[in-house]
């Protein structure tokens, strides 16, 4: 698969002499769907449900973009990518947008030729161990064997953390999160490390979640967000403001339940601008003025998506924490829609 995507880059770079700067929005409209890169399966973020339909927090972002562009959240095709394949898939044009709990870093933004459109989940790297080991802190992990997924910032943070604390470790590196979990459960390694959200997601699908403990240390900043290719600013704007509209909608208490009512009756000019009853924000993006209304009506605001996929009551049971609105103790802060 990796080789296939490499060939895709090579051939794309070789033969598509003019396509590099073509407008993604036009391409997407012409083919009638958005090709969205997601994980190969991470409960809560992107995983097929029992009917084979993709669901999750990242999937909701793809659906929101589809709603903004087409007025219909179903016009998305999903490309499952491993951590290693995701960037070549986006570089080569195989996918239009990557919503795959990807950490925003300098080198990815600058050197790899991508544009991160924002942060949809503030995360940090943590460790999970079996309770039976009796480990209470990550500082007790000297000499442990650590299972980790390849091609991630996780690998780099892990090396930094152990070096900084003068500890040694053996890493065992796998391509997909499922292989890592399998090796961890089979006791091939002592520790499973990835973003804490990923640890909670993996723990939720383990047969006996109570036997595993996520250690308190958070060893890195992992702002996760969707990204697009560098160079197509219009498409980047659409992705950025799709995310911002979802966050803003939660702040303004606009949800899928009350959006119809608010659209007809609200006196709040901010909500009117967002829902397209005044101004032409949608047209400025190259979409219809109903774009944000369609997102909220079909997918819901940020809080609804979070509660449905990750929040308390779901198997993952993650508290909002940093991911609460700025006025509720978190750091979510969307620029104004005006």
């Amino acid at each position, binding site marked *: 698969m990796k080789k296939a995507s*490499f060939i895709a880059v090579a051939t794309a*770079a*070789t033969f598509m002499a003019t396509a590099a700067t073509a407008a993604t929005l036009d391409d997407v409209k012409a083919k009638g769907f958005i090709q969205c890169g997601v994980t190969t399966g991470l409960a809560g973020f992107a995983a097929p449900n029992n009917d084979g339909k993709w669901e999750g927090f990242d999937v909701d972002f793809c659906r929101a973009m589809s709603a903004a562009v087409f007025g219909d959240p179903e016009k998305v095709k999903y490309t499952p990518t491993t951590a290693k394949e995701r960037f070549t898939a986006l570089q080569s044009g195989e996918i239009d947008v990557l919503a795959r709990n990807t950490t925003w870093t300098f080198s990815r933004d600058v050197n790899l030729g991508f544009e991160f459109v924002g942060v949809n989940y503030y995360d940090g790297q943590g460790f999970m161990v079996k309770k039976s080991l009796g480990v209470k802190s990550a500082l007790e992990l000297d000499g*442990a064997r650590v299972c980790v997924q390849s091609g991630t910032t996780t690998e780099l943070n892990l*090396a930094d953390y152990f070096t900084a604390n003068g500890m040694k*470790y053996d890493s065992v590196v796998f391509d997909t999160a499922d292989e890592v979990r399998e090796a961890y459960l089979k006791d091939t390694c002592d520790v499973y490390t990835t973003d804490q959200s990923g640890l909670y997601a993996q723990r939720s699908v383990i047969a006996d979640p109570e036997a595993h403990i996520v250690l308190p240390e958070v060893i890195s900043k992992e702002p996760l967000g969707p990204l697009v290719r560098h160079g197509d600013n219009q498409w980047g704007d659409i992705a950025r403001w799709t995310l911002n509209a979802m966050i803003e909608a939660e702040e303004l208490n606009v949800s899928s339940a009350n959006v119809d009512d608010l659209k007809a009756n609200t006196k709040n000019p901010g909500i009117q601008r967002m829902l397209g009853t005044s101004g032409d924000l949608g047209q400025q993006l190259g979409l219809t003025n109903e774009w944000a209304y369609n997102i909220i009506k079909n997918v819901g605001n940020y809080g609804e998506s979070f509660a449905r996929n990750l929040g308390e009551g779901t198997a993952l049971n993650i508290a909002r924490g940093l991911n609460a609105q700025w006025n509720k103790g978190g750091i979510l802060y969307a620029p104004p829609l005006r």
Partner: protein
Amino acid sequence: MTTDVQGSTSSDSMLRDPKVRAIFYQILVIVLFILFVAYVGHNTAVNLEKRGIASGFNFLSQPAGFGIGIVLLMDYDSQTSTHLDVLIIGIINTLAVSVSGIFLATIIGFIFGVLRLSKNWIVNKIAAVYIEVIRNIPLLVQLMFWYFAVLSVLPLVKDSIHIGDNFLINNRGVSFPAIIPSSGFWLITVALLVAIVLCFVISKWAHKRQDLTGQTFPVFWASVGLIIFLPVIASLIMGNPFEINYPEYGRFSITGGWSLEPEFLALLLGLAIYTGAFIAEIVRSGINAVSHGQTEAAHSLGLSPGKTTRLVVLPQALRVIVPPLTSQYLNLVKNSSLATAIGYADITAIFAGTSLNQTGQAIECIMITMLFYLSISLLISMFMNWYNKRIALVER
């Protein structure tokens, strides 16, 4: 007028001369090919630049920043070692598993190839079942089987199986005492080298003596003796210049000693057993290709069955075996890239995998990796061709 005619015929013949035309077409093909390569290369470079993707090989001197599970023969530090070091470690790891895999697969293949010809019904059928089952299951599935099904159901570290006092088997691999050289160890190394050289000398001498007098000499046992006793004597002279580091139970795993990681073991077993089945069939066909008359003739000269196989049948069978054996060796080296599925740190996993992903230099990383596999395969081919020539039938 005559000159005119001559002129026209000479230019005519230039056009129709098969040699000239052949050269013309060769040049045409070369020019077209060079143009194509130049076009592809230029276009790739232009488009990479247009998309803002950095290119070039500077990334090789950047620090790697990630940890590697299995590091042999060199020091690796995630903060200071570079992507070039990652490449070298990947190459070493690939070679380590390939060389030991080729060695093991050859042994397995020859044993089962001979067993497959056994007149004993049960032995024959066991070999047949092994060959047919293993050859018909994809290698990737077999690797998964070894790693996730066999090795991981071995006991946990704290319940390790002990063989003797210091040989431990558990789901983290196999641990055994390590020999740590101290000053004076050089004499043992020298003794070992001298022993190996002596073996060659003895073998030459024994051949000559047999040619002259017809007497044989137990070259094999003499060699074994030399290789064991010379280093032992050297060690005694220097007063055992090494320490033995025994494996011990640590907080999480076994510490101390030397150990073979489960990833390495699974890959080695998978590759050797898979390729061994193919080699077994090659060996069987090679032996079958030697006419039965040769065996009968050897028997009637009074050679023992062992000597018949060793001196008459195998040398002739090898001529048939070696060329297809070469391609099995090549397959084994290339198949070792499946390591990435079970977490072994080979060149494909850490260089064309992690390094590629951390630097984003897909084209460079894949090119280097392809070049490495190509060079190794060509080297193996060259060696096997040389060996094939050496054992080929010399016609007089």
